[in-house]
């Protein structure tokens, strides 16, 4: 639909630019002492994932790793509620209980970000079983980093997806690093696609600086997955900044960083759009400014939002129909006051 009007590439640029702007403000939130903790993993440099999220449809679901802000925005998240969650506020997507690493939205098909490397991967296999059994035609996508390629559970999941022909995509966002370890120091043979193929998946690779290539590749893989042919997509990019907000990446050289940051998917998309006449310089400026304004507002609203009331900590452990766990003070009070 978007493709017919040919505004899709512009829309994708807009989303990528919003992600960039959002992540920069997450960093600011931290510097202002307003984030819940310091475990903030920015997806700057990996915005071309929008090529995948844009190829997904209504009702499709996904899980992400700890660096999943961009994916979630790509699937339509409200940046203000995201920022509030990252700040541990009551208005956040998870009522201030999950934070950056555990953001989710049932309504938007986000089955959960995960702070366990590889932890969310098998969930899409289960979602695939649901879609197969109910015949819904949906697909479920697991987003994870190159580090998760060394977690065994990935291969268990791949085998099951292939064996049962499930509508599932495994999407590896390969940013060359797992914390301070460059991929060649973690992997015996750099051939992730081969691994996936050996497990019976359809494998593809896309250049993470080229959102349109990502989109085309994802679209075809997702279509096949809906037909019962699960796929694996590796997107190569470069992690622009440290592992988490505080990490200054002393384990890599400034030259490597400078070189890596030239692989900027946002800038490249912008240039391409202008070149191809899909947007003027002024159009792009407008998009950029609007994105920045939107994210400034999200940041400010998160800062001023309220933290959750203390006793909400006992909610959401079990279904609300069952009693919540008793606060410790209640137990001690009962012991103390019942003693004759």
């Amino acid at each position, binding site marked *: 639909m978007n493709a017919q009007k040919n505004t899709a590439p512009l829309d994708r640029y807009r989303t990528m630019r919003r992600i960039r702007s959002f992540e920069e403000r997450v960093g600011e939130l931290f510097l202002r002492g307003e984030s819940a903790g310091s475990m903030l993993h920015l997806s700057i440099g990996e915005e071309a994932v929008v090529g995948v999220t844009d190829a997904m449809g209504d009702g499709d679901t996904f899980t992400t790793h700890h660096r999943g802000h961009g994916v979630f925005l790509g699937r339509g998240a409200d940046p203000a509620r995201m920022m509030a969650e990252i700040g541990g506020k009551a208005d956040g*997507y*998870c009522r201030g209980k999950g934070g950056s690493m555990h953001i989710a939205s049932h309504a938007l098909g986000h089955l959960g970000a995960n702070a366990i490397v590889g932890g969310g991967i098998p969930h899409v296999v289960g979602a695939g079983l*649901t879609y197969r059994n109910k015949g819904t035609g949906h697909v479920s996508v697991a987003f994870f980093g190159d580090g998760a390629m060394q977690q065994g559970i990935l291969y268990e999941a791949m085998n*099951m997806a292939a064996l049962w022909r499930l509508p599932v995509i495994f999407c590896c966002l390969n940013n060359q690093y797992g914390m301070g370890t460059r991929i060649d120091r973690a992997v015996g043979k750099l051939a992730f696609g081969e691994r996936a193929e050996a497990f019976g998946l359809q494998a593809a690779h896309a250049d993470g600086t080229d959102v349109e290539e990502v989109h085309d590749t994802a679209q075809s893989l997702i279509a096949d997955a809906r037909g019962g042919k699960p796929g694996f997509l590796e997107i190569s990019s470069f992690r622009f900044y440290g592992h988490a907000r505080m990490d200054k990446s002393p384990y890599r050289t400034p030259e490597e960083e400078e070189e890596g940051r030239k692989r900027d998917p946002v800038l490249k998309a912008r240039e391409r759009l202008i070149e191809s006449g899909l947007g003027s310089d002024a159009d792009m400026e407008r998009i950029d400014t609007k994105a920045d304004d939107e994210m400034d507002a999200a940041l400010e609203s998160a800062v001023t939002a309220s933290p959750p009331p203390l006793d909400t900590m006992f909610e959401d452990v079990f279904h609300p129909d069952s009693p919540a766990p008793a606060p410790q003070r209640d*137990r001690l009070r009962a*012991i103390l006051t019942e003693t004759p």
Partner: protein
Amino acid sequence: MTAQQTTYREAIRQALLDAMAEDDDVILIGEEVGVYGGAYGVTKGLIDIYGADRVIDSPISEAGIVGAAVGAAMTGLKPVVELMYVDFIGLVMDQLANQAAKSRYMFGGQIEVPMVLRTQGGTGRSAAAQHSQSLEAWMMHTPGLRLCMPATVNDGYHLLRDALRQRDPVCFIEHKGLYTMKGNLDTARADADWGQPAIRRTGGDITIVTYSRMVHEALKAADAMAEQGVEATVIDLRCLNPLDMAPILASVRDTGRAMVVTEAALTGSVASEIAARIGESCFDWLEEPVLRIGGEDIPIPVSPKLEAGSIPDAGLIAETGLWMMRRDTLAWA
């Protein structure tokens, strides 16, 4: 049919049959649950009735299977995943404790994981250190995870039906030594409400709190003690977590003596938790210390003689109980 004589295995199977008949979203997944019918035969024939899409034979990928069940539960199915032995739980603790148990909480109540992990544990088959454990304490120490362990035929049915009605993850642990045990199944009447312990025997002298197979050892011990004039109440925890302690505390306040029995290695066991709770809440009513009886703090040896010797039995329970009444002196003290 409401009441009938059947086995523990059959009662559990019946619960699966009935739940699957009522609700198309209930699926089974696990190693050998389909064609083979389950390592202990609990799922026999279900694949013929409900087909391979609902009774799913899985590869030997425990972590992956439990993870798949989590995802299926999140998206609208009601999976029952069978872990062949609770001893394999170490392979899935991340998916169980960090994913299934915490999802509702971490995501602020948006996403629920209504799944049941069925497994079995315990000694009695000389299956050695990696196939004989009782590891429920790990699950009990996991907020957000429900835990139940049926001791009777009727509970085999009702606890599983109840577990399948929860919108939370439930760990359901059977005992390999009970599958062939016969008893009465009344599908219309549970032994107690979900979350409540069951009082299996009433006596005014001492309260024995236990669960799973040890319920039967405790009942045997209570009979032996009765011959010496000591009457024991035997309480079966059934739902270990969350658990309503009120009936247990009431009984101990009445008898003034409590013993907690587990088949698991004693240190860090469920027995320690229950003993600590009783100690806290019954202090002024206690005539004797709350004693714990459990498995020895060792891996389970394969030799049948050593295996049996490492686990509590009716003899040890009765002996200890009688001592607590000071009706007898401890043979081995």
